[in-house]
């Protein structure tokens, strides 16, 4: 850091510099075309954030660039994002400093994500064709990270995997009249007996074969009311099946276990308020279930109320952004935007999570839903559980008295750490889990950082170049500091830059 700090310019120079370079493949050293390169000035230095794309020689150039300190990063499809100056693949980048009239040439190497390969084999070690294989992160709750389908030799390849430990599982399948139960590699139905597989950058982890046991799969079928094509989804822990049906429906046979079934259909004539009808049910499958009756009912839009504490501003002018995502046994679905400050929102029946993103100067301090009372945990500023039953209402309370946190980060050399990432997570000390998403800022030219718009509650904060987007366990291991924010008083907390020993 010393070297850079010595070169640090106090003010933006009027003389222009050039930052150019090449992006290459770590594996073979080939030039990578079509990579996006981002040049981000450290706060208080340099110009605006800029992007460029590498040409067919893998070259990029930013010119003219005001003198200053910059973070340079590169992204490309199926490559691990690269940060210039990073120590390891998951470390943050170090800022580069250019003086007026400097010409700087950088080389950025990009890694390929890891892959896991193997075969799904029958009782005679013959490969099974067309078997779906899933990769889960070895963590709870289980979340499917990648999927693949076996070829005619039973081979699969799961790719795009960040380094880490994974579990490989074959899904339920009926082949030539025989049912195969879901199985973790090498052949267990229980997760705790599953083989742990490490995904490594630029490599395929090979030979992860699965021998699924034969067993009884069950039919899930029935009738759904309503003439319009109904979209039905059956969700279990190995994934979702979605079909379209009018009247009778039938899913591919499934393994025994707990399932959720949800249905939606457009009903503009009968359900004028929402335009859709829907149904939701959850049940264990331990036998053929061929007589299910799914009765659709009109979805009534959920009323959303926002009350604002300590503010003369009417809620209508706040327009906080509302987001939602469906949650089922297969995991968390895609996040959808419900607009800014909607008075009503249409939720198809089932389990949802909703999050309010308040405007600057406000924080979310309360959440209540009529269907099952309080939501997830104790922090309304994160994702809140919402049970959609086709009716109901939701209240959010916002406060104009948001908290803030600021301070300076000092490096190991006792000097201000410039361009250092500072990570902040809202934290539930009881469950030791993160609430909502990680927030990140970079320190400015003098090592200063600031977070604002914080709701009251417990937070953990960490400054380090060692990680990009550390998870809550990494925050713990890196000695993240815990802070309680009460009301809108600004907190000052100076941090020492964490460096791995």
């Amino acid at each position, binding site marked *: 850091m010393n070297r850079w700090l010595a070169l640090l310019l106090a003010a933006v120079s009027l003389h222009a510099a050039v930052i150019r370079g090449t992006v290459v*493949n770590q594996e*073979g050293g*080939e*030039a*990578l*075309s*079509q990579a996006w390169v981002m040049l981000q000035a450290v706060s208080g230095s340099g110009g605006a954030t800029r992007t460029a*794309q590498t*040409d*067919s*020689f*893998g070259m990029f150039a930013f010119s003219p660039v005001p003198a200053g300190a910059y973070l340079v990063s590169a992204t490309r*499809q*199926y490559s691990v994002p690269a940060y210039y100056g990073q120590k390891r693949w998951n470390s943050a980048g170090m800022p580069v400093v250019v003086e007026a009239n400097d010409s700087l040439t950088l080389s950025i190497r990009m890694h*390929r*994500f890891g*892959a896991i390969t193997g075969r799904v084999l*029958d*009782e*005679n*070690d*013959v*490969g099974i*064709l*067309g078997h779906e294989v899933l990769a889960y992160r070895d963590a709870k709750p289980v979340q499917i990270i990648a999927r693949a389908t076996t*070829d*005619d*030799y039973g081979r699969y*390849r799961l*790719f*795009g995997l960040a380094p880490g430990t994974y579990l490989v599982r074959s899904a339920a399948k009926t*082949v*030539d*009249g*025989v049912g195969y139960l879901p199985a973790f590699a090498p052949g267990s139905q229980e997760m705790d007996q599953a083989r742990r597989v490490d995904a490594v950058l630029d490599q395929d982890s090979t030979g992860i074969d699965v021998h699924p046991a034969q067993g009884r799969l069950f039919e899930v079928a029935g009738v759904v009311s309503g003439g319009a094509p109904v979209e039905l989804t059956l969700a279990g822990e190995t994934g979702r099946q979605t079909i379209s049906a009018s009247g009778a429906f039938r899913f591919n046979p499934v393994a025994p276990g707990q399932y959720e079934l949800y249905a939606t259909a457009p009903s503009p004539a009968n359900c004028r308020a929402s335009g859709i009808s829907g149904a939701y049910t959850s049940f264990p499958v331990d036998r053929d279930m061929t007589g299910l009756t799914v009765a659709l009912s009109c979805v009534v839009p959920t009323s959303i109320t926002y009350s604002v504490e300590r503010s003369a501003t009417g809620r209508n002018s706040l327009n906080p952004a509302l987001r939602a995502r469906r949650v089922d046994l297969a995991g968390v679905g895609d996040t959808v935007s419900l607009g800014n400050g909607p008075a009503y929102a249409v939720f198809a029946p089932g389990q949802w999570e909703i999050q309010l993103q308040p405007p600057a100067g406000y924080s979310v301090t309360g959440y209540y839903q009529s269907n099952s009372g309080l939501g997830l945990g104790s922090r309304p500023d994160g994702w809140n559980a919402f049970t959609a039953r086709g009716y109901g209402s939701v209240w959010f309370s916002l406060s104009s008295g948001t908290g803030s946190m600021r301070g300076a980060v000092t490096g190991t050399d006792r000097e201000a750490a410039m361009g250092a990432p500072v990570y902040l997570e809202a934290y539930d000390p009881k469950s030791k889990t993160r609430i909502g998403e990680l927030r990140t800022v970079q320190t400015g030219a003098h090592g200063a950082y600031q977070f604002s718009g914080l709701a009251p509650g417990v937070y953990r904060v960490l400054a380090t170049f060692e990680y990009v987007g550390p998870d809550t366990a990494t925050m713990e291991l890196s000695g993240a500091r815990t802070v309680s924010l009460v009301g809108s008083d600004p907190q000052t907390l100076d941090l020492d830059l964490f460096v791995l020993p």
Partner: protein
Amino acid sequence: MFKYLLFALTCGALQAAAIRGRVVEKQTGHPLARALVVVHPLDGSNGATASARSNPNGSFEFPGLPAGWYLVSAAKTGFAGVEYGQKRWSSAGTPVALEESGEIEMNLALPHSGAVSGRVIDENDVGIPNCTVFVYRNTRPPEVAGQATTDDRGVYRVSGLSPGAYLARTAILNSAIGVYLPTFARDSVTVGGAIASEAALDRDTLYADVRPMAGRLTTVAGRVSSPGPARASVTVTLVSDMGSQSQTTGLDGRFAFDRVAPGAYDIYAQAAAANSAGTLAAWRPIEIGANGADISLDLAPLPSVQFSFVDTSGKRVDSSGLPFLTRRKDLSGPGKTEYLRLDAGGQTRLDPGRWEVALGPTASWYVVRVSGAGAHASSGTAAGWNEIAVAPGNAAIAVEVVLSPHPATLRGLVGDGGQPASGAPVYLEAIDPGSGIRWGGLRATRTGVDGRYSFAGLAPGMYRVASTFEYQAPDAAAMSRAGARDVRIEEGGKVDLDLDLWVMP
């Protein structure tokens, strides 16, 4: 064959016999569970076709079979099917003779189908992910045999291929810095410069790499107009030999396909007519150059096609019992074959476009000529497929099919060293007397227990016929190698031609 013939039975026996055996993976010898095994009695043998699945040990058994001659075959998804007694993958299976109370044990080893694989790479040999690759049979025009998508390394693999020559070709590739045209391996935009890969059973044919070539895409835009009030939801489909893409128009009837590669296309439009009065449609074949095309399509009721069937003396033929077949033909290949459904007056409504018609197998008629609607014998002879162009619009389209009630028959005995050859494959091809090129498809049959074969419903002309176990579907060159005999068949002729079973030296 001698060995079998010694056991040949002239009539069904009363005592039951059995065929049993094991199905294995050819590469490893591992048992194949749940393979489908079929036993099929030869003509002249008692009994019916039976099928069973192999058990978890790969074993199968057909107990209680009447004595006789049988062909035995096995199949499993992902594997190439085999017939018992095949010398090579391209040979025909040989029948087995089952004695009274006899038992036959056999091993059926299934090879994996062929596969073609390679990488789609950019100018720096870096793999391009998420790129669609089509694999075509190396015919003219090429026929799609399969498709795959490249993985994160740019690797693709198309499996399930029978042995033969294939061409790999990328689909249009759009990227932030440019557009890549559909490109054949290795690196040719035209089929003429493509390099074929030879697929074989039980192995992957590697290195069918493609480096897509940069180029310019264009736009095909236009408007669909319809009779009466403007209508929304007209489906416009653009078809090429790379497949098809569709769009739905708005009330203004406008459509635009951007990023289209230059080449030959068929463009179709279809909409439901008002008052549920059927369908409106339009079709145009177009050649798209570098500057794109502006197309105007007029929707009209489906054209009415009037088929008339007459015999060679001009007398009307009642076609109601005849198996006339039809299939749609566009640039992406022939569609599904269906029976031609005509009303009492011989009319039908077809979507505008190219269609093919043919008379299915029948011993009582053959097609002499098809005329009208630009008809031509697409397989070289009117007795095969005949292409017609069903033009859009209101004008009635007349197609006349001239039939002869005097088809010929070719029959005879296949001998093997002076003995009749039971269950021997017999292949027949019609040839162009001028060029000697095959017309239409290959016809195949097997001799019965008595070694006799017969082909009926033949149009007059020049034919070549051969009998051999060495091939399953011989091409013209293989027919020549197998010593195919030339035979001229006259109208209504009943030609007797005995053949010698050909065995590869």
